[in-house]
């Protein structure tokens, strides 16, 4: 899809151009990581963070449709994209003063109650500050009216990464024609399997044993079509994503996950930074170093750095800072430097940079397992919940399988895990030997890291939840006021209730709360994720009505 002329669009009044198939975000992030957004409460500058349609960093209004994620939107000729929620512009926003005037944040729970006479005034002001965009236009809604696509398949494979593709290929080899869905806009096809690209499964309710087929999944194809898939068996191969990290100014534009850095690069594009600092000491950090080498100046790792990464980095002249803590990211708006400290009694030091790439921890994409009611287990290696599976990938829900890194299988064995699930579905007897998985015993590296970090005086704003602008101090306060457990702290602070559905904030909150509450993370709670996994337009859902029976599981 490289041929064809560029798509001409307008962003905040200025002309822009995107190559065919390119997203609005990559078109806006050619030179450097842009500021696209102001945060909801304090109007802090924000830019793309995840690059994969899961955060709140790249929301724009496109042709009258609010809350469009630039990293998931492929522009058409004549598109009009705008930023709102800022005055006069996202780059120079007078409301950014809120961030300065309230150094300790605004206490929405106890504050703004007095004098009672002012209630109406407070409510108008606070209400006016909420939300990113004005309501949609009628035209935007009309443009999304598309009938729901219905599919009825033997096997649905969710995710076309390495493991999903191998599962699909194996099923094809056994004479089946699976349906493969992937969020990616241009996933690699599997011959013999049907492929729906740009499609996210948003809701996989518990299977109905009495119904044939038992699974009834709801999906959504960008930009606006609903898909309903009925299936006999479902293989979830949704993989994993890069997590966030807590430190001062951890929400500054320029700080991205490895997912973000990699999606903004590739296909002949250079990364939108020159001197990035990569955070992490594992496989993922090495992958980033190998792919973006010349644009990286240093690797900072919470723990030791293994020899392969040392070699990859020194070959490229990249400096290494093992056993280091990030105290804060500084700069006027974008990140300009990182304040670091060697662990233990080591010194503080500062590294100038134009980007920070978080590659220290990968978490499973788990919402569908929760929705489907699969039994979950805690794996301390990454500090996350994974489906409880047998060696052939079978979950506690009959007909539902989990393969690859979503199931905690290490990358080296993900194709093997996929093959086994496929074999099991076609009635074979798969190899029962254990596959290497993320560890389920012992400590998570970050626990010790956070324990030490929390003893250092905090500087800069620690954002515990970027979507809702919840400060880390609010989590500490909730704990100090006796509110225990992730479920309650979530409701007390609002953490995890924003557009990312808690994907980025809850895993770290769980680790930190486990330290603050003095009990293990699983005791602090279970992270539930409610449907849909990504926001689904009301128009696409409304189109379901034709096929809607009122039956429920």
């Amino acid at each position, binding site marked *: 899809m490289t041929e064809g002329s560029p798509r001409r669009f307008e962003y905040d009044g200025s002309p822009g151009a995107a190559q065919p198939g390119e997203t609005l975000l990559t078109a806006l992030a050619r030179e450097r990581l842009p500021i696209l957004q102001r945060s*909801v409460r304090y109007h802090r500058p924000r830019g793309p963070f995840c690059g994969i349609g899961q955060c709140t960093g790249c929301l724009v209004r496109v042709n*009258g*449709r*609010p*809350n469009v994620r630039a990293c998931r939107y492929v522009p058409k000729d004549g598109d009009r994209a705008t930023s709102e*929620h800022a005055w006069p512009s996202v780059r120079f926003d007078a409301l950014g003063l809120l961030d300065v005037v309230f150094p300790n944040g605004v206490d*929405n*729970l*106890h*504050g*703004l*109650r*007095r004098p*009672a006479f002012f209630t109406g005034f407070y*409510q108008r002001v*606070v*209400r*006016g500050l*909420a*939300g*990113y*965009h*004005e*309501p*949609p236009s*009628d035209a*935007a*809604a*009309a*443009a*999304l*009216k598309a009938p729901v696509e219905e599919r009825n398949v033997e096997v649905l494979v969710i995710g076309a990464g390495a493991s999903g593709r191998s599962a699909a290929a194996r099923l094809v080899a056994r004479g089946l024609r699976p349906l493969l869905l992937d969020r990616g806009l241009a996933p690699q096809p599997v011959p013999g399997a049907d492929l729906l690209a740009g499609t996210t499964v948003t809701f996989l*309710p518990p299977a109905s044993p009495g119904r044939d087929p038992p699974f009834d999944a*709801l999906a959504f194809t960008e930009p606006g079509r609903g898909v309903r898939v009925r299936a006999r068996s479902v293989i979830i191969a949704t993989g994993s994503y890069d997590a966030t990290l807590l430190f001062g100014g951890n929400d500054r534009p320029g700080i991205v996950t490895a997912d973000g850095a990699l999606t903004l690069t590739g296909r002949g594009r250079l990364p939108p930074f020159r001197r990035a600092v990569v955070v992490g000491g594992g496989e993922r950090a090495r992958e980033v170093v190998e792919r973006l080498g010349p644009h990286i100046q240093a690797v900072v790792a919470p723990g030791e750095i293994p020899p392969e990464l040392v070699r990859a980095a020194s070959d490229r002249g990249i400096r290494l800072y093992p056993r280091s803590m990030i105290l804060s990211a500084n700069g006027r708006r974008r990140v300009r430097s990182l304040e670091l400290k060697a662990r233990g009694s080591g010194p503080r030091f500062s590294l100038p940079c134009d980007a920070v790439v978080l590659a220290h921890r990968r978490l499973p994409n788990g919402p569908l397992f929760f929705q489907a*009611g699969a039994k979950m287990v805690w794996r301390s290696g990454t500090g996350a919940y994974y489906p409880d599976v047998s060696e052939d990938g079978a979950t506690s829900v009959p007909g539902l399988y989990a393969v690859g890194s979503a199931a905690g299988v290490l990358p080296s064995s993900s194709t093997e895990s996929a093959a086994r699930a496929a074999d099991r579905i076609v009635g074979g007897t798969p190899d029962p030997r254990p596959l290497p998985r993320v560890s389920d015993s012992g400590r998570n590296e970050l626990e010790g890291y956070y324990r030490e970090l929390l003893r250092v005086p905090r500087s800069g704003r620690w954002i515990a939840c970027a979507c809702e602008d919840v400060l880390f101090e609010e989590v500490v306060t909730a704990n100090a*006021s006796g*509110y225990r*457990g992730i*479920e*309650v702290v979530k*409701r*007390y602070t609002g953490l995890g209730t924003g*557009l990312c*559905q808690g994907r980025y904030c809850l895993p770290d909150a769980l680790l930190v709360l486990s330290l603050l509450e003095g009990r293990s993370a699983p005791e602090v709670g279970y992270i539930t994720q*409610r*449907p*849909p996994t990504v*926001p*689904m*337009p*009301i*128009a696409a*859902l*409304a189109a*379901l009505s034709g096929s*809607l029976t*009122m*039956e*429920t*599981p």
Partner: protein
Amino acid sequence: MTPPSRTSYRTVVVGAGIVGLFTAHHLARSGAGPILVVDRGFLSSGASGRNGGGVRQQWENRATIRLARESVEAYRRFGREFGFNIWFRQGGYLFLAENARELDRLRTVHDLVRSEGLASEVLDPGGVAALVDGIAPEAVVGGTYLRTDGTLYPFPAVWGVYEAARSVGAEVALGVDAKGVSVRDGRVAGVVTSEGTVTAASVVNAAGGWSGDFSRAAGLSVPNVATRHEILATEPLKPFLNPMVVRTSDGLYFSQTMRGEIVGGLTVPHPTGTQGGAPSSIAFLGAMARALAGLIPRLGALGVLRAWSGFYDDTPDGFPVVGEDPRLPGFVHANGFGGHGFMLAPAASRRVARAVLGEGVDLDPQLFSPARFTTPAPASAIEGLQLG
């Protein structure tokens, strides 16, 4: 889990939802301790943490209107009294009628509400459109509107009452399951919990959707039925909608919260009872989306952010159950609030506390007392406006 600190209490309240907590607060404040509140879940895990936050005074019965009005006053004072900002915003409740029959019904409610001194208004389609920007033309024939109704944030209300109850001496034990009662000489002598039995002279059944289960565990047959209701929240938008909107025909309701999300629900039938847990359904998402997009077409381009569900505790006549059970002295009901317990809780729980203390309850026993289900001639009044 926080186990009870003693083995003996004067009153045990089952359920740390808004009703149980308000009741414990009233009791503790009147010095009727020691009081224990037990909840098997975490704070706000029941309907009190899952509702739409609507507070309205438009009802089909005078008694309900009066309770709701008292609650509105209580929620207006809440910030001052309880130290938490519940963002109680009086943007009004707008009931929509799609045909003349529905409008007649709303008019009857309007007349009753007016006769109680509340400034309800009947609106023509133009008046409705002025309140609901972007409503589809000819979607309605009219509606009624009461501007002093409104919405609040349930969570801070729960925190506020929780802290207040504890500060006056009530004990709240979370993660503790009440399994039944122990009875001596025909009256309540204690409560059997997952942490052992505690003695108590009275027990308050404020178990929300599980109240029927708890009454039955105590050997009392009750008509309470748990029904699952789903609700969703959209992505946030800048404010454009002031009132809570309720459609008479199908019970569609929605409002725009202080955070800008549209939060609302619609009833789709589910099997009754609590045993299936509280999942969401594709049927609900489809029906709710169709209803919203049909009423305000431009909302089609807005994303649904998350859906969840909770239990209503329904009674056959639509009135809550408040008072001591005549069959088991010491067993006090504070349940049956259907989809409206948050808005009735401040006023109703004051009566529950009086019932526990053996003081007179100024509620029509025909409508509210548990005795109405056990006497041979059931009362004929019903509270039918079970919408939104």
